[in-house]
C-alpha cells in the first residue's frame, strides 16, 4: 500500500520531492510519501501562508472558524467517511497499536473538538471569545484584542495518533497560519486534517502546510524559524533544547517536553464493591497507547487499609492487564524496545534478592509487567509498553516527598479518592508541580481546553493589543461630532 502524506498550498510550476517512509505491522506493509521542500520552495510557501493568514484567516469570524473545524470533526466522527476509514485502516499499521484501541481512541479524542467544546476552549482562555475578532471593552476601561501570529511553525511528536490536532486546531482558533512538520512515527493524520479543512472551506487552502524534514536539519530549521512568530514543538528534552538553540530570541518558543505521570489510589476506592472498577480504570490508563503519552502513568501509589491491600491491588492489576492483553493486545515491540524492557524487568527481578517483599508479575512474552515494590516510593519512570510499578502508602499525602524533586517533569495525576481527599491532596500536588489532576481511567484523555503542562494553549499563542483609556479619551476630543 502507498499513501501520500502532508498538505501543501498549490504553487504554480513547482514540483515537490517526496521521501518514502515505510511501515510494517499486523502483517501489512505501508509506504508513506512525505513532502520534502527545498529552501526556495519553503520560502514560497511561507510567504503564501503569511499572506493568507493576514488576508483570509484574520477576516473570518471565530464563529465561522469554529464551524469549519466542527464540520471536519463531524465528518471524522462518521465511520463511513473515507478519511475516517483510512485512519482506522492505516494508523494501526504505522503505529502498531491495536485496531480497536485506535478506533476507540480516535472517537474519544475527536469528540473533544466538537463545536461546544471548542467554544469552551475559547472561553477558558479568553473569557470573551470575541476578543479574537474585535476590540472588546476591558473592565479597567480601554479595549483589548487578541492578535494571532501570522505563522506558527509546529514540530509534532508521533507517540499518540492524531496528536498534531491540538496545536493545529489551536492555531486555527487564533487565526494563525501554520507550517507543521510531521513525525516519522505518525506522518498521516495532520495532512488528512488539513485537506479536510480545505475541502470544507476552500478559502483556507493557503493557510497551512504539512511537510517533513529530517529532525535536526539545522540549516532548514534556522531559516524557517527566522520567519515564524511562534515555534511550537513536542519531543524529548534534548531535541527541544537543540530546536531552542535555533529559534531567534524575538520568536516565541513553546516547548512540550518530557513529562511523567502517576496515579494515587485511596483505600476508600478499594472496598469489595468499588475495587474492581478502580483496578479496571488503573489498567486502562496503562494500556492506552502503551504508556507512550506524557499523561500515561508510571507508578500507582496505593493506600493501605482498604479491603484490597496494595499487594492484592498489584496482583489484581496484573490480572486486569492480562484481560486487556487478550482484548486489545499490545503492539509488537522492536528488538531495542524488547531489550530495554527485558533489562528493566531483570533489574527489578535482581533487586528481589535484596527486597524480599517485592514481586515481579508478568507472563513469559512480556506483554505486560507489574512490579509490586512495597515501600519503594520514589517516582521512577517505567520502561513503558505496559510496565507499571505499584507501591504502598499509609497516607495519601506521603506521595508528596516522593515527587517533590521531580517538579519540572510532573504532569498528570489520576486519582481515585473521596471529594475531601481529592481537594486536600490536589492543593499539595499543585504546589509540588503537578499540572493536571483527573479521575483514574481518564488519564489519557484530557478534556478540551486543558492547560497542557499548566499553560494556556491559545493565550500563549497570541499577542494582546491594548487601546488604553487615554487614547480613547484623546480621540474623543478630536472626533468630528465634538461640540
Amino acid at each position: 500500500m502507498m499513501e501520500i502524506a502532508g498538505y501543501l498550498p498549490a504553487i504554480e510550476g513547482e514540483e515537490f520531492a517526496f521521501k518514502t517512509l515505510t511501515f510494517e505491522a499486523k502483517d501489512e506493509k505501508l509506504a508513506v510519501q512525505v513532502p520534502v521542500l527545498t529552501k526556495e520552495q519553503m520560502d514560497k510557501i511561507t510567504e503564501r501562508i503569511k499572506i493568507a493568514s493576514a488576508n483570509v484567516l484574520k477576516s473570518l469570524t471565530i464563529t465561522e472558524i469554529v464551524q469549519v473545524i466542527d464540520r471536519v470533526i463531524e465528518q471524522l466522527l462518521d465511520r463511513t467517511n473515507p478519511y475516517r476509514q483510512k485512519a482506522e485502516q492505516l494508523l494501526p499499521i504505522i503505529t502498531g497499536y491495536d485496531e480497536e484501541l485506535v478506533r476507540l481512541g480516535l472517537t474519544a479524542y475527536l469528540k473533544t473538538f466538537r463545536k461546544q467544546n471548542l467554544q469552551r476552549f475559547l472561553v477558558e482562555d479568553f473569557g470573551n471569545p470575541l476578543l479574537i475578532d474585535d476590540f472588546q471593552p476591558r473592565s479597567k476601561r480601554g479595549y483589548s484584542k487578541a492578535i494571532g501570529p501570522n505563522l506558527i511553525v509546529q514540530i509534532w511528536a508521533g507517540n499518540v495518533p492524531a496528536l498534531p490536532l491540538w496545536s493545529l486546531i489551536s492555531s486555527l482558533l487564533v487565526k494563525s497560519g501554520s507550517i507543521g512538520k510531521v513525525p516519522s512515527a505518525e506522518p498521516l493524520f495532520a495532512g488528512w486534517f488539513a485537506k479536510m479543512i480545505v475541502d470544507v472551506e476552500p478559502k483556507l487552502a493557503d493557510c497551512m502546510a504539512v511537510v517533513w524534514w529530517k529532525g535536526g536539519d539545522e540549516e532548514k530549521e534556522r531559516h524557517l524559524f527566522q520567519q515564524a512568530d511562534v515555534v511550537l514543538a513536542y519531543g524529548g528534552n534534548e531535541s527541544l533544547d537543540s530546536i531552542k538553540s535555533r529559534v531567534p530570541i524575538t520568536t516565541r518558543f513553546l516547548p512540550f517536553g518530557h513529562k511523567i505521570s502517576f496515579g494515587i489510589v485511596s483505600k476508600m476506592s478499594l472496598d469489595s464493591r468499588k475495587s474492581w472498577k478502580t483496578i479496571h480504570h488503573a489498567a486502562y490508563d496503562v494500556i492506552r497507547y502503551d504508556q507512550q503519552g506524557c499523561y500515561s502513568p508510571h507508578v500507582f501509589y496505593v493506600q493501605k487499609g482498604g479491603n484490597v491491600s496494595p499487594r492484592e491491588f498489584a496482583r489484581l492489576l496484573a490480572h486486569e492487564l492480562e484481560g486487556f492483553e487478550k482484548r486489545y493486545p499490545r503492539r509488537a515491540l522492536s528488538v531495542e524496545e524488547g531489550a530495554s524492557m527485558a533489562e528493566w524487568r531483570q533489574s527489578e527481578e535482581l533487586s528481589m534478592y535484596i527486597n524480599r517483599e517485592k514481586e515481579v508479575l508478568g507472563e513469559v512474552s512480556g506483554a505486560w509487567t507489574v512490579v509490586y515494590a512495597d515501600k519503594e516510593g520514589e517516582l521512577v519512570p517505567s520502561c513503558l509498553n505496559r510496565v507499571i510499578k505499584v507501591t504502598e502508602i499509609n497516607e495519601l499525602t506521603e506521595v508528596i516527598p516522593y515527587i517533590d524533586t521531580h517538579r519540572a517533569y510532573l504532569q498528570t495525576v489520576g486519582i481515585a479518592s473521596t471529594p475531601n481527599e481529592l481537594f486536600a491532596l490536589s492543593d499539595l500536588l499543585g504546589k509540588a508541580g503537578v499540572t493536571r489532576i483527573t479521575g483514574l481511567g481518564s488519564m489519557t484523555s484530557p478534556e478540551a481546553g486543558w492547560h497542557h503542562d499548566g499553560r494556556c494553549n491559545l493565550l500563549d499563542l497570541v499577542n494582546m493589543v491594548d487601546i488604553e483609556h487615554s487614547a480613547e479619551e484623546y480621540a474623543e476630543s478630536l472626533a468630528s461630532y465634538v461640540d
Partner: protein
Amino acid sequence: MTHEIVDSVLQFLKNESTSDIAFNDQALRLFNYQYKHNLPFQMYCRQKGKTPRMVKTWKDIPAVPINAFKDLTLSCEDPEKAEDIFMTSGTTKGVRGKHFHPTLQVYDNSMLINFNARFMNGYESIRTGILFPTEAEMSNSSLSHYLALAFKHYGTSESRYFVNNEGLQVEQLLAELREVEELGEPYALLGATFSFVHLFEELQTRGKSFNLPKGSRILDTGGFKNKSKELELGAFYTQLSTLLGVEKSNCINMYGMTELSTQFYDSGNEVVPSLKSGPHWIRTRVVNPLTGGEVAKGERGVLVHCDLANFNSVTTILTEDLGIEKEAGFLLLGRVQGAEAKGCSIAVDEFIRAAKGSSL
C-alpha cells in the same frame, strides 16, 4: 572440587575434536557445579524455575543478564580469595560489574589457544605494539590482561606499549612504525578501537601515512564507547588500511566482554559487519530479549553466550549486543541502543540524569 572443575575445563579446551554431546555434558556439569556453589545464581535459577532437574541441555541454562555482575557476587569460590577480579568499565549508577577468577589458568589458556588460532596466522611470535595501558596501570581490566598475554606469549623482545598515564605516545609510536616500515618485518598493532581513532586523527593532522610490511596485522577491540568520534565501521577499516597500509583482511576485530573468559574473532573486515565466531568451548544463541526464546535464523536478536571457560561465575550470559545468526558464526550489529520514547513520555535514562542534576 575446584581442581577437578578446572582440570576438566582445561582438558576440554585442549581437546579439539569435541562433539555436541561433549559440549552439552560439560555445560551441564558446570551448571550443576555453579548451581550448587554460586548461591545468588541458584536463587536466580529457582526463580526462573530452572533447577538441575529441569535443565536438560546447555540451551536450558538460564542466561544471566550482564547487569547481574553489577548487582550480585557471582562466584563459586570465596571472592576474597580470587587470583584476579576483572571489572567492567561501564559505570551505570556508579557500580562496576565484577568477574571473579579464582585462578587465571583457564582464562589464560582460553585466550592463548584462541588467539594463536585466530590472530597469529601461523607466526610463532611477532613484533607487537600495544595501544592500551599495561596491567599495572589498569589492574582490573580484562582487556589489559588479555593484551599483556598477547604481548608476553606472542610478542618478540622488541615489542612495547604505546599508551601510558598521559595517553597515546604518538611520537614514539610514529618512530616505531617508521622503523618497522624500513626494516620490512611484519608487525602487529593491538589495541582498543578508540586508540586507533586517536591515531588516525594524529596521522591526518600531520598528513602522514604508513605502509606496514607484508604480513602485518592489526587487532582492534571494544568499539568506540563514546570515548572518541564515532566512525562508521566501514570507514574505520578503510582508514586502518589506507593510513597504515594493512589490508582489511588482516585487520581483525576481537569481540570480548569482562563477563566472559573467551573471545570471538572475525577473519578480517573487508565486509562489515564481519562474521564473528569463537572456539569450540563457546556457543552463541540469538534470542528475543523479552521471552528468551531463539529468534528465527536470519532475524535480529540479542546475543546469549554459553562460555565453558566461565567455570567460576556463570556459563551463560545475556548480553546487550545485537546480532544475527549465520551458518559459521554471527554478525555483530553493535549494542542495543536504549529504545527512546517516541514522544513526550520520559525515558528512564534521562530521568535519572535529571534527578542527579546533570541534565541539560
